[in-house]
């Protein structure tokens, strides 16, 4: 009797702490403390649940918790920050797997006891449908990001038609089991189809679109948790699932906006396949690129008063975050002011670049979001673009024929001079020519980003 009120009250406290934690994430100063409160909330909820009268033995629970802790520790402490996108995709798969298995288990119990009703089966069906497609979708995303599978979109004829047919089939199965709750083979078929949908939808999405996919899967995992809450009549699952779903939704909208793509375009588009439009834009980017030597670049940076560094994914690939921070330190030591301009899709997941630079000891007040820094380029002496391409392409603002036209970009060309560190003369991820590189204000410094930065730093020290 006591547990009947005690458990919900414990859940209420946990829910409160979770929401406080999310609120504290709005500022870096409060974020860490907030998340520690959330961890405490989690302990409260789990301990309270152990008093649930339905739990009659603890051996299995202990086994599960021990295995989970052994797996969780390395995933928390050893995974490098560069691998964060695949790490997150991996845990989406785990979360969704837990939800799916609970859904199957609850269905099985209800089937045996003969208590399945349409309402509960609606929730359970949605839970396993969303859960299982998130499991395979997340594993696909993980494999692509980890390089186990090629990052290119895999496209074959009638793919979209096929995907939509499968989706329709899964929904038909769902409706069927709502009508006939005891139709276990249909329930199993629905799981099979959903697993397949997860694979098929992610297989055609390219590496550059992964931030949207990861966010979207985050949202689905949340909604699967909501359905679990409905199925077993548990409010904390509904609330946390809704928070998770909202978070994933907001992030995928933010990412889509940053790439100037609609949801449907990301899911059905296959950006890597676009080639017709880029012919038009390659004509626009004509002119000479001027090359700069390391010595000249170092001189220019050493005497600059205001410098903005624009890091792109090329920086993370060559592990040059620490060298970029050293460059900033050297310029600041000479009295210059340095900031980092962060485009929302600079990394491989929302906010990824910020974490990589924070890890390299760049203070977060120097990491400025695109919207806040764009007006400051005009008063900047030198912009250093490191391994970024599409996110600084002025064609997005000026050339309606360009495939990236309309995408919000960093207005680098407003600055007084620009130095671009680039591996070679290749194109960006989207395969689009970049007008910035032929701008008279731009000087190109070719080479591996990390090596170029090391050379630059040595030269600046000698100035």
């Amino acid at each position, binding site marked *: 009797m006591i547990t009947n009120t005690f458990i919900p009250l414990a859940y209420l406290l946990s829910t409160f702490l*979770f*929401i406080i*934690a*999310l609120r504290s994430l*709005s500022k*870096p100063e409060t*974020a860490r403390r907030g*998340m520690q409160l*959330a961890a405490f909330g989690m302990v409260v*909820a*789990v301990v309270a649940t*152990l008093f649930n009268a*339905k739990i*009659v033995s603890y051996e299995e*629970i202990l086994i*599960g918790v021990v*295995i*989970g802790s052994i*797996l969780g*520790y390395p*995933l*928390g402490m050893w*995974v490098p920050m560069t691998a964060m996108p695949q790490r*997150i995709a991996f*845990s989406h798969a*785990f*979360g969704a*797997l*837990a*939800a799916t*298995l*609970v859904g*199957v*288990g609850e269905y099985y119990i209800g089937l*045996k006891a003969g208590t399945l009703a349409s309402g509960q089966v609606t929730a359970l069906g949605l839970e396993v449908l969303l859960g299982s497609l998130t499991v395979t979708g997340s594993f696909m995303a993980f494999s692509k990001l980890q390089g186990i599978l090629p990052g290119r979109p895999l496209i074959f004829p009638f793919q979209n038609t096929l995907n939509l047919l499968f989706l329709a089939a899964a929904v038909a199965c769902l409706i069927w089991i709502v009508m006939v709750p005891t139709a276990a083979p249909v329930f199993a078929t629905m799981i099979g189809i959903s697993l397949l949908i997860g694979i098929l939808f992610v297989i055609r999405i390219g590496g550059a679109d992964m931030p949207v996919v990861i966010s979207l899967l985050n949202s689905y995992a949340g909604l699967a*948790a909501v359905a679990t809450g409905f199925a*077993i009549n548990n409010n*904390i*699952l509904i609330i*946390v699932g*809704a*928070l*998770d*779903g*909202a*978070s994933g939704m*907001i992030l995928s909208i933010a990412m889509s906006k940053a790439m100037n793509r609609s949801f449907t375009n990301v899911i059905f588009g296959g950006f890597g396949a676009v080639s017709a439009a880029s012919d038009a834009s390659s004509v626009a980017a004509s002119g000479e690129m001027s090359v700069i030597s390391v010595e000249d670049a170092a001189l220019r940076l050493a005497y600059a008063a*205001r410098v903005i560094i624009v890091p792109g994914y090329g920086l993370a690939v060559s592990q040059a975050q620490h060298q970029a921070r050293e460059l900033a330190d050297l310029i600041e030591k000479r009295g210059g*002011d340095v900031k980092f301009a962060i485009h929302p899709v600079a990394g491989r*997941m929302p*906010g990824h670049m*910020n*974490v990589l630079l924070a*890890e390299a000891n760049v203070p*977060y*007040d*120097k*990491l400025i979001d695109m919207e*806040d*820094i764009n007006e400051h380029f005009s008063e900047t002496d030198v912009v250093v673009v490191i391994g970024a391409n599409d996110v600084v392409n002025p064609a997005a603002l000026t050339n309606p024929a360009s495939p990236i036209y309309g995408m919000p970009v960093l207005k680098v060309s407003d600055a007084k001079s620009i130095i671009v560190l680039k591996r070679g003369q290749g194109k960006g991820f989207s395969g689009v020519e970049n007008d910035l590189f032929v701008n008279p204000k731009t000087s190109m410094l070719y080479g591996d980003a990390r090596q170029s930065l090391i050379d630059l730093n040595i030269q600046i020290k000698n100035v």
Partner: protein
Amino acid sequence: MSAITAIQLFVFLLAGFVGFQTISRIPPLLHTPLMAATNAISGISLVASLVLAGGHHGTFATVLGTIAVACATTNIVGGFLITDRMLAMFRKTENTKNTAGSK
């Protein structure tokens, strides 16, 4: 539709609004920690897994429940650890040198 389902729908609606309001305020600076954090918190599905694993509803349900407990615990342990590790990296400029420009 039962009265309980109706209440659940209200809870879902309100939680969704709270989620949109709260998460919209989180700056892009912290979007990766946010994702890791929601991942950790969504490990709350452990409470459902615990009831399934410890409920003795036959071997099949117990095995599913135990795997689910392991998965959810992995996300909780790994999620909170990695979020804390990340948030510990975010530091402000140490010296109080006045940095002109944007906030």
